[in-house]
């Protein structure tokens, strides 16, 4: 049985088609769904597409920015107002993957992929999901925890905080291969400063758990303090707390635990 492709003009119709067919997958950039088809995943027999303009909209005007789920990494990189997201976007794939892969698709990419989502998680992102009965916003952290059950849902957009300054947001992907490689671990830190003190620290980690997670102990070590050597050291040593990394082809759980603090320290202190 060949695959059926269903293309809709609106996200509502697409969402309906998705939720009514367990063998249906939404086709974003193709890097997940087309790969699965190429590799003989016969659980997919329907591809759903939507040509809704809303999916490719970028709203970068306010303190919270919104990216349509269909926005590609190349488009993020082309947008001057999104400079704070350029490093994470640039860390995805090679140029072809960045021209294809989308912000929405990245939310579903399993380890060792999904690096952009690490950045979003540190920026307090929310995900707008179109269900059978309309749209709802879900905190990204909550979305990720229920990701396995979200395959019937259609992501419309992602919103996140715009950091107050370039200094306030840092991102680093640790890969074995340069300049493009799968993540050993990925780190993002949002450190808003208020009156010289960090207020609302967010540290997010990739490849340190089954999904992208927040490093809450490290956040606590930073909260309310100035970003000095002692604070950084405290955050670095707390980085591993609450993580549950696995072994995979790129590194072992042991190694990830060993280096997460080192890399967090380097990230926060601006070292290479």
């Amino acid at each position: 049985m060949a695959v059926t492709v269903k293309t809709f003009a609106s996200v509502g119709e697409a969402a309906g088609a998705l939720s009514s067919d367990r063998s249906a997958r939404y086709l974003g950039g193709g890097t997940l769904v087309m790969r699965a088809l190429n590799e003989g995943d016969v659980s997919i027999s329907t591809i759903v597409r939507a040509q809704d303009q809303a999916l490719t909209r970028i709203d970068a005007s306010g303190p919270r920015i919104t990216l349509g789920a269909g926005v590609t990494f190349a488009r993020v990189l082309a947008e001057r107002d999104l400079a704070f997201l350029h490093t994470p976007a640039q860390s995805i794939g090679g140029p072809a993957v960045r021209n294809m892969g989308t912000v929405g698709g990245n939310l579903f990419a399993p380890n060792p992929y999904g690096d952009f989502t690490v950045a979003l998680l540190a920026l307090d992102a929310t995900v707008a999901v179109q269900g059978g009965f309309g749209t709802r916003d879900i905190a990204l952290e909550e979305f990720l925890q229920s990701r396995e059950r979200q395959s019937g849902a259609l992501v419309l957009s992602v919103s996140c905080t715009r950091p107050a300054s370039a200094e306030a947001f840092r991102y680093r992907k640790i890969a074995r291969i340069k300049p493009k490689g799968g993540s050993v671990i990925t780190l993002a830190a949002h450190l808003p400063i208020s009156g010289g003190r960090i207020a609302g620290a967010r540290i997010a980690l990739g490849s340190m758990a089954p999904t992208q997670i927040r490093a809450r102990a490290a956040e606590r070590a930073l909260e309310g303090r100035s970003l000095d050597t002692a604070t950084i050291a405290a955050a670095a040593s707390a980085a591993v707390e609450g993580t549950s990394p696995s072994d995979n082809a790129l590194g072992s759980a042991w190694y990830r635990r060993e280096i997460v603090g080192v890399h967090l320290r380097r990230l926060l202190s601006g070292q290479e």
Partner: protein
Amino acid sequence: MLELRKDIFADERDDNLKEIGKGTQRQDMLGHITGTSSYFNDHKLQGMLHLKVLRSTHAHAKLRRIDTTDAERSAGVRRIIRGADVPRNLNTLLSLINFGKDDEPSLAVDKVRYKGEPILAIVADSEREAFEAIAKVRVDYEPLPTVFDVEDALKLGAPVVNETYPKNAFIYHDVYDHQRLRFGDADAALATADHVLEQRYQMSPIEHAPTETNGAIAAPDTNGRYVVYTSTQALFFSVDTCAKILDVPSNTFHFIGGTVGGGFGGKVDTLTEPLAILGAMLTGRPVRYVFGREEEMQYGPPRGAERIYIKDGVMRDGRIVARKIRAYFDSGAYTRLSSYAAVKCAAHLPGPYTIPNVYGDVYCVFTNRTPATAMRGFGVTAMDFAIECQMDKLANLVGMDPMEFRILNAYRDGDMKAHRREAKNTALIECVQVAAEKAKWPIRDEFKRASSRKDGGGSRAVIPATPTDSRGRPAAPAQQRTTYDRAPVTATREPPREPPPSTPPPPPPRPAAPSHGATRFSSVFGTRRR
């Protein structure tokens, strides 16, 4: 950046040549840069079908039952191929040159020995339909105990991976479970050495990772022949292997290789051609069988892992007096080419150095993993890693510069090598000198003056007294006298459960007619030459 050092060994060369030595453009470059070089898959054939195999999900299991009822009814399915459909469902690659016993089925019949082993093949109108049908096959496995470590595999009571070799080791010369090298008295020399260093080295398997995966397209041709477009690195190896497995004369096939998208040793094993041709024979249509990338990475054969133990004796002045090596090649579940890798490795000992006492035992061991094969540097890469790390440690131990330590111990023209042949045409010393110069690594004048052409031979040319092993040895027949002249048509269709009886003495070297189409590559095998 590449520099030709024409000044070195100039007296041994005639450089008055017209075409040789020029950086002439590659004959295939224009094809490559315009995308017109033709690879096996660049052939579009009318009505082509697609073949996919069902692979074992267990590393070691009995196949209790294979139910293809639903798969047969699946849309687009033209043919399901089982082990019983393969005319001679047991082969080993080097049987073409009389080396080793047939030990590997094209499609597993009663048992799988590694995860990913092909169990059956499905030929369908499209790849998608082949995948869909494969998903509908039900296999009832009875898992068996597995063994993944080479030394565990050789222990008494280890699970038997491959019944053809019930002790999990390839048998050399019908006698030993390893290839040996004996030169001088290593134990005695170790006892008198100033320092003894024993170390363990381990090399992981390595995947060839050519950008083009393994594959073949087979199509019925005129006159009952089949044209086969293939990625093979060894065209006649593949032709004759297919002739043997499919039990037809070798001129049934017209193999066309074209350009190969990288091989590195990973396209020697004739993995896809036999099933593609059989599919074409059974359906009368062109059939394509191409590995996906995950198949290539996990179930295409890798360079096998090796574990190596080295024990060296070195004197305070830096001379190595003894080297004792035990090495294990992880062959995976079947022999493929690891059997020969061990022989090549034994001949390579003790590396490019003149050491008066050398002792080596090299094992080819079966484990429940993807069968290993050749790769660039075959049989040598891992041993060089081990030997050269060891050399660095020895230099450190005696407080010598590692470059000078290499030059001191380097083999030179006229020296006797451990495999009992005179070293000739050597150039290790000059390589060390030039590399040191390039890297601005200072070495002392006496080492700069050393030469591969000086100070060899003499006492270094002697074959030392070599003690025989204490245990009596049976009269060893000449190597690999197991004949490849396969017993006429009592073809084994599945792996034997019992080890086959010991081989009879070799028949006359040239039977009147071969019983099959495959060419015997070596009718002179066993001719002793020193």
